[in-house]
């Protein structure tokens, strides 16, 4: 079942086209990731989806609610985490959560009980009565995500949820995102961390210069760029003298020596390994390890977008 449906969405700022006729959909209960460099159109897209920005053309529906025509109705089922922790510095953690609950019309008892529950879930119960300004970056981020969950939204938008925070907080946030997905929450996430997208997302879209250049599951994206199978073999001794014989015996493979005791077998389609292992065994070579090598999502991103991942990491201060 579709939770988000975006059709031919375009946003222009003067002559500059920030989002250029993009279309995609997000299924209920999945984590959908938007991956791209700064200025790619990620934030403009998310801002249109949450009803903060009006598109020049296109259509957005969330749970069959037209966001452009009925933004307020759609916002009732959304939890929104901006790319900055934008809670109130003067208020403590508990008061911030209660205030956010009140914005969604929650009664006093209900929002106080949910706030306590969330502080516990995010391991912030000891900091609940401290002002937000006294929180560390990681704690601020966690409280901002908790605030987006106060009204138990069906749909959660996370704009760069782990940017610029410590490793432990990032790990906790990722765990919580997966926990929310398991509870049935649909999550739309923008990130420039490829590893994070790979680890969390069911499906990913690469966005560059306002256009979606590729989308699909990690497996589909990898298959789009990789049309060969690479098998890495680690042996008990030097195999360099046997590569020609191996190549002659098995015409469908290409053999490359990586190290004296490590070779890579490349094939156009999957083949059984046993004959190769037998052949090597006859030559008194034992294979200790055989592993299929897949291209990483990073390789796929670079190939499809032409953007080096170091560019993404420099923009946001690294992973």
């Amino acid at each position, binding site marked *: 079942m579709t939770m988000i449906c975006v059709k031919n969405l375009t946003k222009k700022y003067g002559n500059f086209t920030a989002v250029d006729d993009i279309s995609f959909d997000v299924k209920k209960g999945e984590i959908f990731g938007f991956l791209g460099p700064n200025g790619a159109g990620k934030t403009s897209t998310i801002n249109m989806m949450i009803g903060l920005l009006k598109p020049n053309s296109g259509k957005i529906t969330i749970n069959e609610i037209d966001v452009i025509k009925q933004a*307020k109705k759609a*916002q*009732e089922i959304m939890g929104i985490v901006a790319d900055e922790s*934008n809670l*109130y510095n003067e208020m403590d953690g508990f008061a911030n959560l209660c205030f956010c609950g*009140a*914005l*969604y019309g929650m009664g006093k008892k209900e929002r106080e009980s949910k706030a306590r529950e969330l502080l516990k879930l995010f391991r912030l119960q000891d900091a609940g009565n401290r002002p937000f300004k006294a929180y560390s970056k990681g704690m601020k981020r966690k409280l901002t995500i908790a605030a987006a969950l106060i009204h138990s939204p069906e749909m959660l938008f996370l704009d760069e949820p782990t940017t610029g925070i410590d490793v432990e907080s990032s790990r906790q946030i990722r765990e919580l995102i997966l926990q929310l997905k398991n509870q049935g929450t649909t999550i739309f996430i923008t990130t420039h961390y490829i590893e994070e997208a790979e680890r969390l997302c069911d499906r990913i879209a690469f966005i560059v210069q306002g256009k979606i250049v590729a989308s699909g599951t990690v497996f589909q994206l990898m298959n789009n760029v990789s049309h060969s199978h690479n098998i890495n073999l680690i042996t008990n001794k030097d195999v360099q003298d046997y590569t020609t014989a191996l190549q002659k015996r098995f015409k469908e493979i290409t053999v490359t020596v990586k190290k004296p005791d490590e070779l890579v077998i490349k094939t156009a389609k999957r083949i059984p390994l046993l004959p190769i292992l037998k052949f090597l065994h006859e030559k008194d070579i034992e294979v200790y390890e055989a592993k299929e090598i897949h291209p990483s999502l990073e390789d796929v991103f670079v190939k499809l977008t032409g953007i080096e991942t170091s560019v993404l990491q420099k923009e946001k201060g690294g992973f």
Partner: protein
Amino acid sequence: MKSLIAFYNILKKDITNYYLKPPNISWGIIFPLSWTMMQLLRSVDSSILELLPGLISTSVLFGTTSMLAVTITFERSGRSFERLLLAPISLNTLMLAKITGTILFGMFNAFVPIIFAGFFINLSDINWIIVILAVFLIAVTSSLMGLLIAVSAQQVFEAQTISNFFRFPMLFLCGLFIPISSLPVFLKPLSYCLPLTYGADILKGAITSNNSFSYTLCFVMLLIFTVGLFTVSKYAIEKKQNQ
């Protein structure tokens, strides 16, 4: 009901976070007080009653425009204002919640010179119902002007600069210090386009029975300004969102 909960909590947050902070309370008391004392010392021949409409109007105008311009610009720069815009409440409810705190602060400001004057003169002849209504409507229109400025400015200092650009000419054109009849012909139409002209005139009528227009005309004009400024501010917020 949901909108009411949101409205009440936005108002409560603003009062607790901004208006009840010691620097703002002291500003709310000290500014009208020093303005009052300055006028009394400089105009020894004038009666306190004659000065009161001007002191009340000035206190409300400065109190409301300063506070709203600062708080909204501050929330916009920290992006917490975005949180309010994304809540499932109408923009009307949000705007009303934001200006209500300022209106209350402005009314509190207005009563500083009144209380001060009460120590020296008898205020029993004043038509208090009319004064409270006028103070309320001056506070509403000034708050809406503050909102309009806050939406247009990026930084707090910018908001204050723009505020002064409007506030000082308004004070001198609204008939409080210089009668409108004494103004040059080309400035007179400008005076009639200022909400403060009508607010101050009501106060003059209620305090010294020295008003130039009828109460009905002034109240109608203030209500028109309220609706107009509310509509323009709403349009400005919506337009700003799409930039």
